[in-house]
Each structure stands twice: as C-alpha cells, then as structure tokens.
C-alpha cells in the first residue's frame, strides 16, 4: 500500500501544484494529507471543481481534481465543453467505486462502465498500481501536459492508504 504522503509528494515533485475536489472514502487519506499541507481547495460539486481547476491552470498552475467516479458523471459536460475544446489540461484522480460489482447499488452502473465511458469521451486513463506507481504518475502528468487535455488516474480501493487502513 502506498502512503498518502508519498503519493502527494510524488505528484508535487512532478509539478502538480493546485488541488481541488469532492471527497470519497478511498481518497480520504490523500485529501487529509493535502489539507495538512494546506494546498486543498474544497469544492461542492465535481463540475465546479473542474471549473476551478481550469481557472487555476490559466493562472499558471498545474491542477488536479479528486473525485469519486459518480462525480465523473456530474462533470462530464464541463470536461467536454470546456477542457476538451479549450485544450485545458487537468489531472483527474478518480476513485473506482463499484469495481467488480462489489459495492453499494448506486455505484454499480458507473463502476461497470467507467473505462468504456472514458474511452467514449476520449479521455486517456490509467489505473494506479503499487508496483507501477512512479511510472503511472509520470505517464499521467506527461500525457496531460503533452496533449493539453484532462487525464484520469483511476484509484482502486486499498492502493493508496485511506484514513482507516
């Protein structure tokens, strides 16, 4: 399991320097670490978070937005009619609720279709593993900067240490 402070430090070392989002239990440890470092801007909806990140990008920052995959549904229009056409990069750190059908009912549909959904809207994505951690982070940041669009880093349960290990 990757420690939250190691995860955050690695992102900061890669130049990511603006963090916003809406919480999820899988992301709890990361958000706690971001709050300790006083670099987290809490948003009330995922489309708002993506908007805030877009503004921060235009103000010279490299932004990341944290969300549960349910929030992907909420912010889809912003990603398509803002980021993708205005060429605004953003790292989306998305927790994979409903993966493999083992979760509460509200997560099952999105949990099943998320990878295809991202393919359909042409947003590159990669699922983080402990073994490929450094390479995964390098790839997502490099890809979003090179292509100037959002890129999703998918987090499954237990890869990065949560609040309650």
């Amino acid at each position: 399991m990757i420690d939250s402070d190691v995860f955050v430090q690695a992102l900061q070392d890669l130049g990511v320097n603006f963090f916003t989002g809406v919480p999820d239990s899988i992301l709890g440890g990361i958000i706690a670490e971001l709050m300790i470092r006083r670099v987290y801007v809490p948003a009330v909806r995922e489309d708002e978070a993506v908007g805030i990140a877009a503004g921060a990008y235009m103000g010279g920052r490299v932004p990341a937005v944290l969300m549960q995959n349910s929030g992907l549904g909420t912010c889809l229009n912003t990603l398509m009619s803002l980021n993708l056409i205005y060429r605004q990069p953003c790292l989306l750190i998305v927790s994979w609720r409903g993966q493999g059908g083992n979760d509460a009912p509200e997560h099952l549909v999105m949990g099943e279709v998320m990878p295809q959904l991202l393919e359909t809207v042409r947003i590159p994505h990669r699922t983080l593993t402990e073994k490929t951690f450094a390479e995964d982070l390098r790839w997502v940041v490099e890809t979003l900067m090179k292509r100037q669009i959002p890129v999703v880093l998918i987090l499954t349960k237990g890869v990065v240490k949560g609040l309650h290990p």
Partner: protein
Amino acid sequence: MRPEEGTLISRAQAIATVLELLTDQPVVICNGFPSREVHKMADRPTHFYMIGSMGNAAAIALGVALAKPNKQVVTFDGDGNVLMGMGTFATVGALRPKNFIHVVFDNEVYGTTGNQPTISNVVQLDKVAKSAGYVNVERVLDRDDLVYEFKDMLKKDGPSLLLIKVNEFVEDAGRVVHDPSVITRRFMKAIEG
C-alpha cells in the same frame, strides 16, 4: 411583469458601462449572449469567453483568483448561469477571495434559448450571495447606480457581487469567432505575471 419594474437598461448597455470601468483585469464571461455581446463590444485578450460549460463561469474565475491573488478577477454572469451553479456562491463565500468580483446581469430569462423564464424574479440572487458570505453585495437598476457601485467595488476587498437588473433586449451579436483553444492561450498570456 418581467423584468423587474423600473429596469431601464439592456444587458448590452450594462456590459458597455462595466467594460468602460475595467482596464487589464481578467474577465471570465459566461456562455450565451453575454460572451457574444462582450466579444462584439470590446474584444480584449483579458477576456475569457465561454461557449459551453454553463454554470461554471464563477468557478473558473475563482480558480484564476486563487492562482493570481494579486489580480482583481471579474466574472460576467447571468441569472440562469448562477442558478445552475449556485453551489459556487457557497464556495466563494467560504473561501472569501478578496480579489473576486461577481457581476450578474439578471434579465430573469434564459435569453440565449428564447426567453424562457428563470426563477430569479422570485429568488433574489443578491440575497443568496449575501447569505453565502459575499462581503459586498449590491443590487442596481440604472446606469448611475451601476457606475457608482461598481467603482466602489473595484476599491474594496471582496468577494463582491453586483446584481444588475436588465431588460430582455438582446444586442445583434454573432458568435465568438476565436477557436476555444486560442481563447485559452490568449487569456493565459494576457494575465501572466
């Protein structure tokens, strides 16, 4: 009666008045006719014209304001847009960025799609902003009050919200001609430093 009785000016007249009082401040302009009208009246590189992502103008401006704390950042918004992203009132009210000025042109209709009524004739958006924690909030109906209050807001620490009641008249303005990616690069360059 729509819009509010006593409202004399059009959004285009209100926009022209505000633009005269601005210099090099970054301005994020919501989608629909507001972006088209601003683009027609004064196409400044400091303007970020939105053509989609309705409801997100204030969120984008908030991001700019947080990344550029030494610049006063202005949002041009509409009542339909504010209602769609009303949670951002709360985020702004909680974070209290001093350099954030939110100008809402309230015509009580979705003008871009054919003047279907919004609910801002019943829900007073300025009062919502005040409750959410905006520091300076004013509601104006005519040009003189608009000039006085906006000049005053430029001098004060925010977050501030100026709600301008405007009529439904729409300026004959074409679509924004720039490619969206050009709008991004041009805006970024203009607000650098």
